[in-house]
C-alpha cells in the first residue's frame, strides 16, 4: 500500500468509531473525496483547436520623414518582421498557409505586390500566398482576426498576420476628386473630415478638457519612456539594419534601428500645454496630444493549439474574440467605447475580467473618453505608453499593440489573464479583440501517479 494510503489508514484508526461510546454512533470512514478543483477560475478551457499566437514581433516605430526609417523601403520593413517571425518560431516557411498584412495608405495593388516582394526577400518560397487588408487604423488587428478566422474555418493551419505603414512614403492624403453626392448625407460628408476635427468633435461633445488631454499625453510619454528604459520593448522589437541618407549630401550611413524614436521622456502637462491647437482655432487638439505619424511594421504567427503543441512551440497568447462596430464618422474616436464591450461580451467575459488594455491613442481626447465611458481602471490601460508617445503607423498599429499586449501579459504572469487591443477607425468605426495570456495550460499531473493521489482532492499540491 502506498505511503499516503498508509498514513490515511493510521489516521482513520485514530478516529475509529469502535472507540465511540454507545451514545455517539458516527461512522467515520474514508470516502473518495468529492472536493473538486477549488481553483475553478484558473481552470482553462483548453481546446486543441484554439487559435494561438506563437510569435509576435515588431520593428521599432520611427517618426515619419525624420526618423530612423525615413529612407527604408516598405518591403524591407515587411521582410524584417517576416524573417524574424520565422527565426523565432523555427517554422519552415513553406508550412505557412497564408500571409495577411494590414496596410492603409499605400496604393492597394502596389502595396500587395510589395508584400509579395518582401516575402521573397525574407526567404519564403513562391508557394506561400499573401494578401493585404484595409480597415483603416484597425488593419493590423483586422489581419490577425481574419487569419484567426481562416484557421478556425480550416483554410490552413499556420498563418502570419501583421501590419505595415510607411507614412514617410505614403502620408495621409486624399487622391482625386470628391463625389458631390456626399452632400446628400451628413455621415457621408463626415467621412471626409480630417481626423483632427473628429478629435475636436469628441472633445467638445463629451467635455474632454485641454488639461485632461495634455495630462493623458504626458502619461503616454512617461510610461513609454519608463518601459523603454526598463528594456520592456526588447522582447518584441526586431532590430532592422538599414540606411539613413543625409538629405543634403546624399551620403548613406548604415544603421541598425532598434528603438522607438518618438518618445519624449521630458514631456509634461506643462510643456504640452504650450502647444497651439492645430486643427481648429481655439480647439484642444494639438500635435502634442495627438498620435504621431510613424513608420513601422509588425507580424504575428498564429496556428492551432494542436499544431503549436505538436511543434513544441511556447504559446504567447490565445485569440479569443474580435468585434468591429460602426459609429458616427464625425466622432469616430468613440469607436473603442463601443467595440470593446462587444468583443468582451463575445468572449463570454465582462470588463472586470480584462487585466490589460491596449487602446490606441489616436488622440488623447478619444482615448480619455473611451476609458471614462467604460469606467476602466486607468492603470490597466496602455501601461507601456501608447501612440501619442510611440506613434501610429496606421496599418501596423493593431499588430504592434498585440505584440506589446502579449508581452506585457507574459511579464505579469498570473496577474494578467485577459487583455484587449482596441482602436478607433477613421470614417466611423471601432474594433477590438480579446486575447488570453498563453503559457499555462492544465498541466498534466507530474510526479505521483494516480494511485498515489487516490483519496486526495484534485487541488492537493504534491511535490
Amino acid at each position, binding site marked *: 500500500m502506498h*505511503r499516503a494510503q498508509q498514513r*490515511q489508514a*493510521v489516521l482513520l484508526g*485514530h*478516529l475509529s468509531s469502535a*472507540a465511540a461510546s454507545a451514545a455517539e454512533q458516527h461512522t467515520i470512514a474514508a470516502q473518495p473525496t468529492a472536493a473538486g478543483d477549488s481553483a475553478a477560475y484558473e481552470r482553462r478551457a483548453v481546446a486543441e483547436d484554439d487559435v494561438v499566437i506563437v510569435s509576435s514581433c515588431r520593428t521599432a516605430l520611427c517618426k515619419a520623414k525624420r526618423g530612423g526609417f525615413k529612407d527604408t523601403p516598405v518591403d524591407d520593413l515587411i521582410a524584417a518582421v517576416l524573417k524574424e517571425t520565422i527565426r523565432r518560431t523555427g517554422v519552415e516557411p513553406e508550412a505557412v498557409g497564408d500571409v495577411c498584412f494590414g496596410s492603409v495608405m499605400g496604393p492597394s495593388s502596389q502595396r500587395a505586390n510589395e508584400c509579395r516582394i518582401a516575402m521573397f526577400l525574407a526567404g519564403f518560397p513562391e508557394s506561400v500566398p499573401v494578401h493585404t487588408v484595409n480597415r483603416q487604423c484597425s488593419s493590423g488587428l483586422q489581419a490577425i482576426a481574419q487569419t484567426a478566422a481562416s484557421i478556425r474555418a480550416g483554410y490552413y493551419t499556420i498563418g502570419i498576420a501583421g501590419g505595415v505603414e510607411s507614412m514617410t512614403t505614403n502620408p495621409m492624403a486624399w487622391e482625386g476628386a470628391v463625389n458631390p453626392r456626399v452632400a446628400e448625407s451628413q455621415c457621408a460628408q463626415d467621412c471626409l473630415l480630417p481626423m483632427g476635427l473628429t478629435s475636436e468633435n469628441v472633445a467638445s461633445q463629451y467635455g474632454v478638457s485641454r488639461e485632461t488631454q495634455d495630462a493623458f499625453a504626458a502619461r503616454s510619454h512617461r510610461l513609454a519612456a519608463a518601459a523603454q528604459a526598463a528594456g520592456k520593448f526588447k522582447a518584441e522589437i526586431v532590430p532592422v539594419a538599414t540606411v539613413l541618407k543625409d538629405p543634403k549630401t546624399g551620403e548613406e550611413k548604415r544603421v541598425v534601428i532598434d528603438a522607438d524614436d518618438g518618445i519624449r521622456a521630458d514631456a509634461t502637462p506643462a510643456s504640452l500645454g504650450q502647444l497651439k491647437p492645430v486643427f481648429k482655432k481655439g480647439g484642444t487638439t494639438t500635435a502634442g496630444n495627438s498620435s504621431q505619424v510613424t513608420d513601422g511594421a509588425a507580424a504575428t504567427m498564429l496556428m492551432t493549439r494542436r499544431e503549436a503543441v505538436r511543434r513544441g512551440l511556447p504559446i504567447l497568447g490565445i485569440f479569443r474574440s474580435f468585434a468591429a462596430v460602426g459609429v458616427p464618422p464625425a466622432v469616430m474616436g468613440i469607436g473603442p467605447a463601443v467595440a470593446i464591450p462587444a468583443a468582451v461580451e463575445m468572449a463570454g467575459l465582462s470588463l472586470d475580467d480584462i487585466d490589460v488594455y491596449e487602446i490606441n491613442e489616436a488622440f488623447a481626447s478619444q482615448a480619455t473618453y473611451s476609458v471614462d465611458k467604460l469606467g476602466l481602471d486607468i492603470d490597466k490601460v496602455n501601461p507601456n505608453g501608447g501612440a501619442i508617445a510611440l506613434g501610429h503607423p496606421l496599418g501596423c498599429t493593431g499588430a504592434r499593440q498585440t505584440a506589446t499586449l502579449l508581452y506585457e501579459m507574459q511579464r505579469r504572469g498570473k496577474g494578467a489573464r485577459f487583455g484587449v487591443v482596441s482602436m478607433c477607425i477613421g470614417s466611423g468605426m471601432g474594433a477590438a479583440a480579446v486575447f488570453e495570456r498563453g503559457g499555462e495550460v492544465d498541466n498534466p499531473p507530474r510526479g505521483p501517479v494516480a494511485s498515489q493521489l487516490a483519496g*486526495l482532492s484534485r487541488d*492537493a*499540491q504534491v*511535490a
Partner: protein
Amino acid sequence: MPGFRTQFQGYSVRFSPFEETKLAVATSQNFGIIGNGRQYVLQMGPSGIQEVRVFDSVDGLYDCAWSEENENILVSASGDGSIKVWDLAAPPEANPLRSFEEHTHEVYSLHWNQVRRDCFLSGSWDDTVKLWNLAHPTSLRTFAEHTYCVYAAQWNPQQADVFLSASGDCTVKVWDLRQPRPTLSLAAHAYEVLAADWCKYNDCVIATGSVDKSIKVWDVRMPEQPIATLLGHTYAVRRVLFSPHHETLVASCSYDMTVRLWDYAAPEDALVRVWDQHSEFAVGLDWSTLVEGLLASCGWDEMTYAWHMDADPRTA
C-alpha cells in the same frame, strides 16, 4: 497574542529551552498525507509571532525537538523515516546539517534528554525507538519491542537513563538504558495510545492519552490501576503534557480541536480549562520551561498560538 499562520498544517510545536520567546513548529503539506514539510522557527514579540527561519524538507515533518546543549540546533522528524538536524547559526546552504536515515517508516516523535543533554530519542511507525547522539553518525541503540507504530518517546525528566514509549499496540513501555528489555509494559488503554508524558515532580507518575478519548494518570509502581482517569475530550487525545511548574497540572490536545487543562489532584473535577482556538485537529502542544504557565499549540488549521494558561489564546 494573535496566532501565526504557517503555510502547511502544523504537527508539533516546541519552546526553545534557551530563549523564552523562541518556538519551533514542524509542519506538513496536505495534512501530512503526501507532500513536503517545513520546519518553522518563530519568535514571539510585542506585535505577535514572527517567522525567524524556515527549513524545507522533502516529506512532511511530524515532530521537532530543540537541543538541550546548543541553542541553535533543532531536529525534525520526517515522514520519509529520516531525522533532519538543523543549525540556525549556519547559512541555508549548510542546512540540514545532518540527515539520519535509519528508520524505515515515518518518524513521529523526537525528545531530547534534559538531564544528559547530549542524546535524543526518536519514535517511529516502524515500531522502534532509537537513541541518537549528534556526535555519532548512526543510532546508539534501537529498542524494538512494540508491535505497532510508536507515537511517542519521552525521557524521564529526572532519571537520565529512563524513558517511556507509547504505541498503537495499546501499551506504554518504560525503558531503562541500563537494561536490555523494558522495565514495564503497561496495557494502558484498550485502544491505541497516542501520547504519554512523565510528571515533572514525581518520577514515577505518567499520563497517557488514547484513541479512546481518555487520559489516564498512572504510578508505574502500581501499573494495574490508573491513579486517575480524565474524561472530557470527544475525540482521540493527541498529546498529554505535564506542567513543568505545577505537579498535578496536565495539558492535552485532541482531534476534537480543543486544548484542555486538567488538575488530576481532584480527579472528579479535573477539567480546569477548555480552549477552542483551533478550527481543525489540535495536534501540537508544549509547555514553556522558562515562563511559568506559558503554553503553545498548533493544529491542522495552520495556526500556532502561544498563551498563558490563565488567558485566552487568541488575545493573550
